[in-house]
C-alpha cells in the first residue's frame, strides 16, 4: 500500500516534471544561446492555457485547440523577440526590466480578459479514464503527459545532437560572434529559437491546464521552478533541462505530500547542493561567450 501510493506520487511528480521540462527547455536554450533570462516565459505558459480554454469553451475540441493555441503562442514569441527583445540584446538590465514588465502586462491582460477566478481545462475525452497502475487507479491523461514529455525529450535530443540545426544552436551557445562571422544569420536563429521556446511553454500550458488548473500567478510559480531547473540542469542544454525537471518535479510533488511547509526549501536546497558540486549545473558547459 505504501509502495503503491509512493508510485502514485512519483508518477504525479513525473507528470509535473514533464510540464516543467517543456518550459525549462525553452528557457534554458534561450538563456544559453541568446544570453537572455526571459522572465516573460511564464506568460507564454499562461497564454497557451487561456487561449486553449477559450477555444475549448467554443466547442473547438481539445486537440485542435491545442494546435491553434501553440501556434498563436509561437507567433506571440516571434513578435516579442522581433519588436521588443531585439532592441535590448547585450544589455542585461534592460532585458530583465523588459521581460519582467512583460510578464506583468500579460498577467494583467489575462486577468482582464478571463477574470481572476481559477478555471480548469477539461481533460480530453479520449483520455478521461483511469489506468490500473500497480493496483491503484491513475489518470490516463497524466500518463499521456509523461509520454509526451519523454517523446519531446527524444525529439529535442535528436535535433540537438544529430542535425545541422542542432549543431548551429550548440555552436551559437559556444560562441555566437564566431558563428555570425562564418556567415550564419544569428538573428534568424534567435527568432526561431525564441518561437520554439515560446511554443514549448504554450504546449506546457495547454497540457498542464487539466492537471494544474489555471489562475493568474501560476506563471510566476512555474517560472521560478523552471529557473531552478535551468540552474540545476545547466545552461543551454535540453538534456540538463530534462533531468533537472524530473528531479525538481518529483521532489516538489513528494515534498508537498510529506512535508508541505518545507517543499520550496527542499527544491532550493537541491539547487544549492548542485551548485556547490557542479557550478555549471549537471550538464552545463560553462558560461557562453
Amino acid at each position, binding site marked *: 500500500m505504501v509502495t503503491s501510493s509512493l508510485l502514485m506520487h512519483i508518477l504525479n511528480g513525473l507528470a509535473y516534471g514533464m510540464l516543467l521540462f517543456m518550459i525549462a527547455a525553452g528557457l534554458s536554450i534561450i538563456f544559453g544561446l541568446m544570453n537572455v533570462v526571459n522572465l516573460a516565459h511564464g506568460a507564454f505558459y499562461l497564454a497557451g492555457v487561456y487561449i486553449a480554454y477559450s477555444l475549448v469553451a467554443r466547442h473547438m475540441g481539445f486537440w485542435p485547440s491545442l494546435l491553434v493555441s501553440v501556434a498563436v503562442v509561437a507567433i506571440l514569441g516571434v513578435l516579442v523577440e522581433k519588436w521588443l527583445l531585439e532592441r535590448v540584446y547585450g544589455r542585461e538590465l534592460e532585458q530583465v526590466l523588459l521581460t519582467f514588465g512583460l510578464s506583468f502586462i500579460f498577467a494583467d491582460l489575462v486577468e482582464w480578459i478571463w477574470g481572476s477566478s481559477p478555471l480548469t481545462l477539461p481533460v480530453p475525452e479520449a483520455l478521461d479514464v483511469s489506468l490500473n497502475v500497480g493496483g491503484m487507479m491513475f489518470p490516463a491523461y497524466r500518463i499521456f503527459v509523461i509520454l509526451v514529455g519523454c517523446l519531446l525529450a527524444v525529439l529535442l535530443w535528436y535535433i540537438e545532437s544529430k542535425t545541422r540545426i542542432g549543431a548551429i544552436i*550548440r555552436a551559437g551557445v559556444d560562441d555566437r560572434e564566431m*558563428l*555570425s562571422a*562564418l556567415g*550564419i544569420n544569428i538573428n534568424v536563429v534567435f527568432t526561431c529559437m525564441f518561437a520554439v521556446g515560446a511554443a514549448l511553454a504554450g504546449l506546457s500550458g495547454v497540457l498542464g491546464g487539466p492537471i494544474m488548473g489555471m489562475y493568474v500567478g501560476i506563471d510566476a510559480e512555474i517560472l521560478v521552478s523552471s529557473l531552478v531547473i535551468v540552474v540545476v540542469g545547466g545552461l543551454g542544454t535540453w538534456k540538463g533541462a530534462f533531468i533537472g525537471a524530473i528531479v525538481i518535479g518529483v521532489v516538489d510533488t513528494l515534498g508537498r505530500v510529506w512535508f508541505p511547509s518545507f517543499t520550496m526549501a527542499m527544491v532550493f536546497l537541491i539547487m544549492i547542493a548542485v551548485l556547490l558540486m557542479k557550478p555549471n549545473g549537471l550538464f552545463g558547459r560553462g558560461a557562453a561567450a
Partner: protein
Amino acid sequence: MLKLDRVHTYYGNSHILQGLSFEVPTGTCVALLGRNGAGKTTTIHSIAGLTPPRQGTIAYRDKSISGLPPHHIARLGIGLVPQGRRIFPSLTIRENLTVSARDSGDTEAGRKRWDLEAVYDLFPILKEREHNRGTQLSGGQQQMLAIGRALMTNPRFLLMDEPSEGLAPVIIEQVGEIIDRLKKTGLSILLVEQNLYLACSVADEVLVMNKGQVVWQGSPQELLANQDIQHQYLGV
C-alpha cells in the same frame, strides 16, 4: 580585392584604428605586422563586421561593406580564421567544419571548391579524428580545423589572425606551407602576424602598423633588411 580607406574604429571610447588605409590586391597575400595593441585584430574585426568602423570605408570587390552585419559580409566571400582559433567546443571536428559550410554559388573557372573531402585531403588528421571534439586536438591541429572551417564557406578572401600564436616552430613552418598552398588556389589573404619570419616567408607585401595606422609598407625582403623598422615597431 579589399580596400580600406581612412578607417576609424573604436572599442567603447578608445580610438583604436586611426585612419587606417591599405589595399589587398586580388590573388595576393598581404601581411600585417605590429606590436600588441597596434590594432591588428581590430583591423580584422572591422573588416569582418564584428566591430564596425565609425568612419571611413571598407570596400570589397569594389563595393562598400562597412556597416553590413557579419553574416552578410561572410556570405560575400570573406572567411575568418580568428585569433585563438575559436573552435566550437560542443561540436565534433566534422560538425565544426560543416556547421557553416556553404557553396559560394558561382561557377568561376579555376576556383577551387572546398567541401569536406577537399578539406580532409588537405588535413588528413582531421578526417582521422572527425568524431572527436575539436578541443581535443593539439594547437596546430586546431589551427588546421579553424582554417578548414573557413575554407568550407568557400571564401575568395581569407582573414587570418595570428595563425602561429602558441605553436611550436616546426608547426609554424607547416602553417606557412598551408598558406602557400592556399595562395596557389587563388585565394587572396590578409595575414595578421606577430611572427616576422612566417609573415615574410608567405606574404607578397608587408604592412607595419602602429597606433592604428600603417607606418611602413614594402616587400618582405625590404623589411628583413630594415633593422630600424624592425626595432622601432616590431620589437625585434
